[in-house]
Structure formats: structure tokens, C-alpha cells
């Protein structure tokens, strides 16, 4: 069953939450970080398309969420992945509608983070109704879907543990824990019995009133129905008022689930056994509950009325939300006059701003934006995904004052690009090398290896990095791992000789070539070079590799062994800025080539000076893998190595 339900603002404040079983808060943090910030959950997004709410799975939990864009709210439901809860989507939907409707004013208040939201009752009610609906839809399937006890009369012992839950969340948690301990059949936390056992839904809540009754078994079933009507909040049952309540049949007629209440006389009897167990808890709960009622401000004399109010209010809100949705849909199809007026006001709004963006508004500008990105050499796949993510961000948003859709879209796209290109963790190669090399405990060389497709400039960029490291007075060993292409070793030797000369002038640092000729296994050469470097006090080992086609499984498979033997600290892939949509595939294949648990650490994008402003390759590669760009090659000289500056690249792309 549901473990936790939280309503979070995008600014990170939890507005309201309900915890049945505590889950680590890092779970939701991870969801936010990976899905919302880093947009890694490509699969989660894909599921979104089927009308289902997106899901995110981690550590045996499933998180489903939905968002209210205009208010900046995220609704997250957490439950164990073992369970299948069919009504979760509906719950998210309804809670979103209710919450946004009820607390819109408070949420939109500027300069304020706290929202005073007594939402518990609405939520409990929603859950009950959805469970009931679910059960009604498939009473037979109640068992399989919700993964619980067989819906038979053996519920005696279950109910002893399960039934007492009073509406207070605290107690539910408590009870659910005991149920976990005692009955192995009933895996799910509290509300389970509702769904599992046809006819008990209200029985759950008559519990609230039960302790006050003591053990008067004879009237129990009738009592049960009445108390059931008054549902979660009717804690007042405990008070003398219950006598009068029994008489109030009027309220009961309003309940459409009357029949169910009647159905479970037996359950009512069994339930009673549980009551004494939890009575102490319950009395507390009742006190708190009634306090809450008072705060709530509705009438407390007869619990039923108040409840009915909530139910009605809730339904009214939901139906109005639905009809609103219907209305907006209908608008598009309305008559000629309506549509033309709409079009004119739409145009006007487009100029003045303050327009709520819909999918239709965005189709054309997004197409334009996509074309623009394609012209900048962004791979189609990346461009489409970027546009989709921007679209998702923008739908339901209001444009600012005096900003057109295009401008809004542009800013959103800039933001998206910046977000993609900015690395998640700081990239300071020198610092890492320093902390490795100068570590007091175990001295070892820092190993960097370079992979890539043929002819993208692996050796050239390797020697540029070597030059950069030499400038910083490190002792560098270059390993010639390309044992395949003729001339590869000689090419590196030329570089090494050049660099040697430079270092001699400088007087610090050293560079040497480690080579074993052609035809040997590159992985072993790499390992030997690392050992050699460790023995001869080199600081950094740079391993060159043979170029390989990324879609050739035979060539790529040797990379896994290579990563295993050489254990590089950094594996960098060189990709040229000239490549078009193939960049995505290259990046993906190389990223996946090093086996489980080892990924690429960064990209070097070479030949950036040759493409002018068409630097889309950068975006394609980062977007495909989420791996940052470490260096850019910008010329023919050793010094022409640069680090990425996000601002300038975004500027170029958005021109």
C-alpha cells in the first residue's frame, strides 16, 4: 500500500505530507535530482506518453508523481515496487485538483513558503473512495491486485491487527508496523482491509468510534454502519453524542455505499475484538481529532454532517476541475465566432503577455526552434528531446508581461541548454591529479585513457593534454596503445620528441613514450605502462588507443578488458565537432562499452575551430549520456585546448 504521499514545491519545501511507513527522504531527493534536474529518466518520460503518470523506481520503491506547473507543485506517491496500486494515478490526479483548488491563494502568495493546509481529511477520504471504487470494479480481483489476504472469513486475526487504525496518520503508521510484524499474510500497511475485503470499507473507520462502545456486540453492526457513515473524522463517536447519532438515519441515506455497510455484519463483529487492544491509542487520537475538527471550523455536534460537507466539497471541486478541463477542450471546437474571438485575443495576448500556454500555441514555435537547433548541428534525437522537455516545462505556464511566446520559448530553451551543459560535479583535472599524486598513503600514477572513432584526433588531443600537464610540471608517460594502425607509434613519438624539447627548455617535468611495437594486445600494454610508471615515479599516464568504429561489437568488446586491466582514473572520449547526428550513437556506444559500473568520464570535442557556430555536437553528446565535456580542441597547436564555458556555447547555439 501507499507508504508516503508528499506535496512539494519546486523550491523544495514540503507543503503537506502523509507518511504511513517512513521512507528515506533521500528517495525523493534522488527523484528530483535525477528526473527533474538532470533529466536522466528517459524511460520515465516515455511512460508518461501512455496517459499514465510517470514513474521512477529505486531501492525497491516506486515513485509516481504529477506536477501542477503553474503553481510549481509536485505530488509524489511512494510505495513499494512489489505492489500494484491501480488507483494511484487517479489519486494523484484528484489530489492535485483538490489541493490546487483549495490552497491556490496561499501558494501564490509572494514571499512566503508556508501553507496552512489541513488536507488530511480530504486525502483520507480520497483514498477510501478510490479503494472502494477499485474494489467495486473488481471485487474478485481484490486479492491479486492489492496483494493481500484472501477475502474470506479468516479475517479475524488480521482485523485484530489491522482494523484499529484511527484516522490520525501517526497511529496508522504505528498500526501498520504491528501488522507487518504479526500477520505475514497481510503485507500491506493499513488501508488494505478496505480494498481486500469487500464490504468492509467503512468498518475501517468505525473503529474510531468503537472504543467508546466497549464490547456491546449486539448493536455493533448497526452502530458500525452509522459510524461508518461518519467516517474518519467522526471521532465524536466516543462522546455521548453517539446515542443521538444512531438515530440519524438521514445522513446515511446520502451515502451511496450504503449497501456495503450492510454487507459486513460479520466483520463488524470481528472488528470489535480489536477495539480494546487499541483503545488507549484511540482515545488519544480522538482527542486530537476532535481538536482538529474544531480548528476545521465546521460543526462538530454531529460528525456526519461535517463529513458530508467535506465529501460534497471535494466532489464539487473535482467535478469543477473536470468540467474546466472539458471546457478548455471544448473551446477549441466551439463555433466560428468563439474561435475567431479566441484567436484575436490570443494574438493580443501573444503581444502583451499573460497568456497561458497550451500545446497548440507551442507547436509552431517549437518546430521553428527544432529546426534552428538542427541547423546548429544538434542531432535530431537530442533536438527533439530538448524541445519536448521545453514543451513540458512551458505547457500550463503563463507568459510574462509583454513577452511573446517566442521570447518565452527562447529563454526556456536557453535554460534547458545551460542545464544540460553544466556538469553536475566540478571538473578540475589538475586538482584530481594533485590529490592522487600527492596523497601521502599510496603513491600511484594518475591514469587517463583516450578512446574514440578513427580519425577524430585522439593522438593529437592526447599530446595537447600532455603539453598542458607538462606546463604544470608533471612527469608524464605516454603509452602507445594503438598497436593496429601503422604509423601510430611513430606519430606519438614525434609528439613526444616535440614535447621533450619544450620541457627541456622549461627545465621541469618530463615526458616519455612507452611502446611495445605493433600487434600486441593493447590492454596488456596499458597495464604494463601503468606498472612501469609506478616504478619510475611518473605522475600521469596517458594511454592512447586504436580508433574503432562504435557500431562494431568486436572492436568495442576489447574496451571492457582494457578498462579492467588498465583501471584508468579517467576515460575520455574524443568526438569531433564535425560529426552530425552520429554523435549520439558514438557517445552511447562508447559509454556502454566499458562494462557494468564503468562509464566514460568526459568528452573531448575536437576540431571546434572548424565548425563556426554549429557547435551542436556538444549538446548531442552530453544529452545522450549526461557526461560532461571536459575539453575542447580549438586549433592545431599544443596550446589549443580549452575548457568548456557554458555561456559562450549557449550563446552561439541560440543566435
Amino acid at each position, binding site marked *: 500500500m501507499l507508504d508516503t504521499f508528499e506535496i512539494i514545491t*519546486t523550491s*523544495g519545501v514540503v507543503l503537506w505530507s502523509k507518511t504511513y511507513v517512513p521512507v528515506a527522504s533521500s528517495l525523493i531527493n534522488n527523484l528530483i535530482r535525477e528526473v527533474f*534536474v538532470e533529466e536522466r529518466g528517459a524511460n520515465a518520460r516515455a511512460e508518461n506518453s501512455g496517459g499514465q503518470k510517470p514513474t521512477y523506481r529505486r531501492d525497491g520503491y516506486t515513485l509516481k508523481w504529477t506536477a501542477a506547473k503553474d503553481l510549481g507543485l509536485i505530488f509524489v506517491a511512494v510505495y513499494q515496487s512489489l505492489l500494484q496500486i491501480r488507483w494511484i494515478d487517479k489519486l494523484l490526479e484528484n489530489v492535485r485538483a483538490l489541493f490546487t483548488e483549495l490552497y491556490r491563494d496561499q501558494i501564490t502568495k509572494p514571499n512566503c*513558503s508556508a501553507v496552512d493546509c489541513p488536507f488530511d481529511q480530504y486525502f483520507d477520504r480520497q483514498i477510501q473512495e478510490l479503494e472502494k471504487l477499485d474494489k467495486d470494479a473488481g471485487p474478485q480481483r481484490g486479492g491479486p491486485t492489492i496483494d493481500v489476504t484472501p477475502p474470506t472469513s479468516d479475517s479475524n486475526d488480521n482485523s485484530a491487527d489491522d482494523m484499529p487504525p484511527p484516522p490520525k496518520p501517526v497511529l496508522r503508521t504505528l498500526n501498520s508496523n504491528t501488522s507487518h510484524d504479526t500477520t505475514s499474510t497481510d503485507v500491506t500497511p493499513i488501508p488494505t482491509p478496505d480494498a481486500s475485503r469487500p464490504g468492509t470499507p467503512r468498518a475501517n473507520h468505525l473503529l474510531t468510534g468503537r472504543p467508546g462502545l466497549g464490547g456491546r456486540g449486539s448493536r455493533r453492526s448497526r452502530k458500525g454502519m452509522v459510524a461508518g457513515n461518519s467516517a474518519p473524522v467522526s471521532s465524536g463517536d466516543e462522546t455521548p453524542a453517539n446515542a443521538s447519532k444512531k438515530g440519524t438515519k438521514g445522513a446515511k441515506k446520502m451515502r451511496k455505499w450504503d449497501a456495503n455497510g450492510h454487507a459486513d455484519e460479520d466483520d463488524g463483529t470481528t472488528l470489535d475484538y480489536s477495539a480494546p487492544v487499541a483503545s488507549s491509542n484511540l482515545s488519544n487520537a480522538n482527542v486530537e481529532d476532535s481538536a482538529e475538527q474544531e480548528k476545521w471550523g465546521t460543526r462538530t455536534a454531529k460528525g456526519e454532517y461535517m463529513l458530508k460537507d467535506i465529501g460534497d466539497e471535494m466532489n464539487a471541486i473535482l467535478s469543477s476541475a473536470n468540467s474546466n478541463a472539458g471546457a478548455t477542450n471544448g473551446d477549441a471546437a466551439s463555433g466560428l465566432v468563439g474561435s475567431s474571438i479566441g484567436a484575436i485575443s490570443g494574438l493580443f495576448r501573444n503581444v502583451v503577455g499573460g497568456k497561458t500556454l497550451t500545446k497548440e500555441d507551442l507547436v509552431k514555435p517549437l518546430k521553428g526552434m527544432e529546426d534552428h537547433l538542427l541547423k546548429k548541428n544538434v542531432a535530431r534525437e537530442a533536438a527533439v528531446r530538448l524541445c519536448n522537455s521545453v514543451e513540458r516545462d512551458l505547457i500550463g505556464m503563463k507568459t510574462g508581461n509583454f513577452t511573446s511566446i517566442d521570447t518565452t520559448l527562447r529563454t526556456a530553451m536557453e535554460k534547458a541548454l545551460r542545464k544540460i551543459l553544466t556538469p553536475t560535479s566540478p571538473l578540475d583535472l589538475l586538482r*584530481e591529479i594533485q590529490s592522487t599524486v600527492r*596523497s601521502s598513503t599510496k603513491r600511484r600514477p594518475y591514469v587517463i585513457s583516450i578512446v574514440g572513432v578513427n580519425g577524430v584526433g585522439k593522438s593529437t588531443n592526447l599530446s595537447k593534454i600532455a603539453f598542458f600537464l607538462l606546463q604544470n610540471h608533471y612527469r608524464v608517460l605516454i603509452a602507445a596503445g594503438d598497436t593496429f594502425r601503422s604509423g601510430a607509434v611513430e606519430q606519438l613519438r614525434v609528439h613526444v620528441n616535440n614535447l621533450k624539447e619544450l620541457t627541456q627548455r622549461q627545465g621541469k617535468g618530463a615526458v616519455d613514450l612507452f611502446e611495445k611495437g605493433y600487434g600486441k594486445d593493447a590492454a596488456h600494454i596499458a597495464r604494463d605502462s601503468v606498472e612501469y610508471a609506478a616504478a619510475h615515479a611518473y605522475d600521469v599516464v596517458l594511454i592512447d588507443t586504436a580508433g574503432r568504429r562504435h557500431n562494431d561489437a568486436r572492436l568495442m568488446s576489447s574496451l571492457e578488458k582494457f578498462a579492467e586491466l588498465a583501471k584508468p582514473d579517467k576515460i575520455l572520449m574524443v568526438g569531433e565537432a564535425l560529426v552530425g547526428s552520429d554523435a549520439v550513437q558514438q557517445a552511447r556506444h562508447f559509454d556502454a562499452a566499458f562494462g557494468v559500473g564503468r562509464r566514460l568520464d568526459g568528452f573531448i570535442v575536437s576540431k571546434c*575551430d572548424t565548425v563556426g*557556430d554549429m557547435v551542436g555536437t556538444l549538446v548531442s553528446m552530453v544529452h545522450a549520456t549526461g557526461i560532461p565535456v571536459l575539453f575542447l580542441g580549438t586549433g592545431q597547436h599544443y596550446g589549443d585546448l580549452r575548457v568548456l564555458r557554458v555561456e559562450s556555447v549557449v550563446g552561439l547555439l541560440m543566435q
Partner: protein
Amino acid sequence: MAWYDEDSWLTQAVGPNIWAVIGTILLALTLPIVLHWFIYRSSVLAKTPSFLVLGPSGSGKTALVTKLETGHGSKTHTSQIPLTVQSHLPKSTVPKSWQYRSTADYETKAPKPLLLTDTPGHAKLRHYAYNSLASTTNPPTGILFVVDAADLSSSGTATGGANFALSDTAEYLHDVLLSLQKAYNNAKTSKAKEIPFLVAANKLDLFTALPAVAVKSTLEKDITRIRETRARGLLGVSTIGKGEGLGGNDEEGDDEREVLGGTSEGDFKFATMEEWNVSVEVVGGNAVGEDGPGVEGWWEWIGAQL
């Protein structure tokens, strides 16, 4: 009738007529008052002091902000957008501008409002923070840089692996200070206002947390290291010409490479930042949790800036 007729509205309005006299007197009396109110009100609104809350992800910025706002704080998760809240100095904290006031002064009874802006700390979302730092329309009165003191302490020097939290924090702090330094250097008017900068060592209620002094020295040490490698690192790519493409112009590169604290030699001390009108202070506290120093120290600091 023409405007110069005797009973035209214009003549009536300026004529020796009792209503005209009353109207004129009223106007003469109320106009200054209205003007005063208008100007006074607007200037007060503009001057609500605003504090910017920065720091890496997970250091407790949002928790701190909500704590300062409501007094009890709320559960928080990773932020995606900035959040601005209005808060009031607690009664116990006396703003600096009131230090010579009598405690019986009526004004001390009215809580002083201030704005706190929380920024997302995730590396991909720090541009919000840098933008508000560089904002010229509403420059922050002070900056709170929240660090997780409990995370810094597990410094992984012994294992050889760098402590990620520490390097991330130090890097962010370095970049923020550097951008402040650049802003000062590029300022047109030489007399830039001093920017108070508080490094708030959060989570001091935890057992593993470093005390504020240790936080200060750890960060200084790490920033020294960052400054060193930054000075020797590669240049950022720049756009050639009018956005023709990417390239590296070394001539242009030199002046953009500015080292925090002017030089990469020697150890970095927060005190050196005073040269750039940034006064850094490190104060410990905890935004959540019962024991520990709480937020008192931070309120004191905020009060001292008002």
C-alpha cells in the same frame, strides 16, 4: 459658451468663489502629504533588506530559510527554483541601526522585515544564484553561504580520494567569492558598498560536525588548492569575433583570468577578501534539530547588517 464667459467652468474654477478657495486650500494642504506618503512608501518598499542564501545542494539552505521565516521550519527536498520569503528579525535580536535606541522605543516593537532568497544548490542550477549575485537592480544586502559542517569533516585526505562534498563546497564558495571580486573590480563607481558574507556552518547538532573555526580553516585550505589549480588550468573557450565560432584568444584570456585574492601564491585567507569589500565571517549553527546552537548566531549576524 466660450471659456471666457463669466459662468464658464474655467472662470468659475479660478474665480473668487468659495468652492474654488476651499478646493485650492485642500489641494495645497494635501498634495505635500500625498507626495510624502508616496515617496516614503515606495522607498521603504525598495529598501527591504534582502539576503541571498547560497550553498551546495544538501547543505540545508531551504531548511534554514523556512526556519528563519516561520520559526519552526519545514521538511524540505532538493530545490529546483529559488524561493524568496519574507521574514522578521526576532525580538531578541537588535539590528545594528538600532543599537543606540532606547529599548523602550516604540519602533523596536515593530519587527523589522527582511527578505531571504533561497537558491538551488545543485550544480546545474547555480546560475540562479550567480544571476542574483550579479543583479544590479536589487543587490543583496548580505550573503549567507550555507555549508554542511558535518560533511566537511569526513575529509578523505588519508584515503587519497578527495572528499566530494568538501571539494564541491569549496569550489562553489571559490566561484562565488571570485564573482564578487570581479564585480568589485569591474564596478564603475569605485566606492562599492561593502558586502557582508556569512559562511554559515550548518548542522552543528550532528556529532561529526566540525566547529566553525575548523570549517573556516578547512575551507581556506581547500580554496587555496583550488586557486592554485585554477591559476594553472586551461582557459575557458571563448567566442571569436562576433559569435563566429569557438576558439581561444590568448590575449583576451589574460585579463579574464582573475585569481581569487589577487595572487595564487601563499595561503588563501578569508580576511584578504576585505580588499574587495567582502567581509567574510564564519558562524556555526543548525537549522534543524533540537540541540546545538540553533539559528541564534545567524540572526545576530543578520541583525548586525541591518
